[in-house]
């Protein structure tokens, strides 16, 4: 499948998959081992556990789904909780799609691209994609994301058979993967003051936000307030830089 044209699909797909498999995909795969355990705990079949990783592709939502089934929540209440816990995909998908879509991509194909968005794919994608030639970004993204999804599906399947077998500290280590990986990945991608400000405000505002608006909307409030402040600081910085160069307002 590999040929010498500068931006043929498969070499870039392969490069993305290779980059994912060289570390990031393993962190998601291990992070989702726990989902397999929970699914088995609540009496769901192996196929459901693996499909949940392939199709829901959102660790916290999967935990809510199976946890909810286990405690006998009404299916509609589970759906509502999954929905609330997944709001982050709206700004995440909106901000990464413009990097990878091509002018002629249909809406349906864009939905396929959007399906792969998750924390690891998002933070690593925003960090890595600007260094990939524009024409090759979609292939690289699909390679990277597919490696993450399929390895994670394997991890979920593994977790199904590991139920109860993991000692406490190791189980804690698996749950710690997402926070530590995201913190490093997003810090590694931060370029300017406003980027750091968004991260810092996210950390600092969350406890306050839970107290002010409650468990359901705390993260949305943190995102809107912290993100808007960081955005305004970035705009101010742009305006100052433009003024120093003798230009007018930035576009």
């Amino acid at each position, binding site marked *: 499948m590999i040929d010498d044209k500068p931006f043929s699909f498969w070499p870039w797909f392969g490069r993305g998959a290779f980059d994912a498999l060289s570390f990031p995909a393993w962190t998601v795969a291990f992070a989702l081992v726990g989902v397999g355990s929970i699914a088995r705990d609540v009496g769901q079949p192996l196929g459901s556990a693996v*499909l949940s990783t392939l199709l829901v592709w959102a660790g916290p939502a999967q935990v809510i*789904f199976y946890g909810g089934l286990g405690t006998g929540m009404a299916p509609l209440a589970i759906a509502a909780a*999954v929905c609330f816990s997944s709001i982050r995909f709206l*700004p995440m998908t*909106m901000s990464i799609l413009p990097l990878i879509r091509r002018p002629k991509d249909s809406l349906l194909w864009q*939905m396929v691209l959007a399906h792969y968005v998750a924390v690891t794919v998002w933070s690593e994608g925003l960090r890595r994609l600007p260094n990939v030639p524009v024409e090759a970004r979609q292939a690289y993204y699909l390679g990277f994301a597919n490696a993450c999804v399929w390895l994670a599906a394997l991890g979920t399947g593994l977790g199904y058979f590991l139920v109860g077998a993991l000692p406490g500290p190791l189980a804690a280590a698996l749950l710690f993967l997402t926070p530590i990986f995201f913190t490093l990945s997003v810090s590694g991608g931060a370029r300017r003051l406003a980027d750091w400000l968004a991260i810092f405000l996210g950390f600092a505002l*969350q406890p306050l936000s839970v107290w002010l608006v409650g468990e359901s909307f705390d993260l949305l409030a943190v995102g809107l307030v912290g*993100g808007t402040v*960081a955005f305004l600081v970035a705009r101010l910085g742009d305006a100052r830089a433009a003024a120093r160069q003798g230009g007018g307002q930035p576009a």
Partner: protein
Amino acid sequence: MTAPDASLVPSGLLASLWPYALLLVFGVLPAAMWRILAVVLSRGLPETSAVIVWVRYVATALLSGVVIKLLLAPTGALANVPLAGRLAGIVAGAAAFLLIRRSMIAGVIAGEAVLVASAWWWG
């Protein structure tokens, strides 16, 4: 076949498909909604547009909030590790990341090592 009024949970072949129907309708759909909405809302917007730049900062702050929530109010086995251990893991991971050529692997391993050590010590 189950009589319509017998039970909401069907039997036989349908029973074996029931978990998948549950997953699709009450798990997959409500999560996918946001990604689909994002496709529609971001249509035609270039990555440099003000809206997309703003949304990107919103996503960054929101995800940072998710992470601190996982650390401050954890669930499962992570809740058995004291707060100091969880925070020390993040600090150790960030320090190793910065000191060892911004290596993600070094950072994650250092952070996990500190977390597991404190889980063993206090757990």
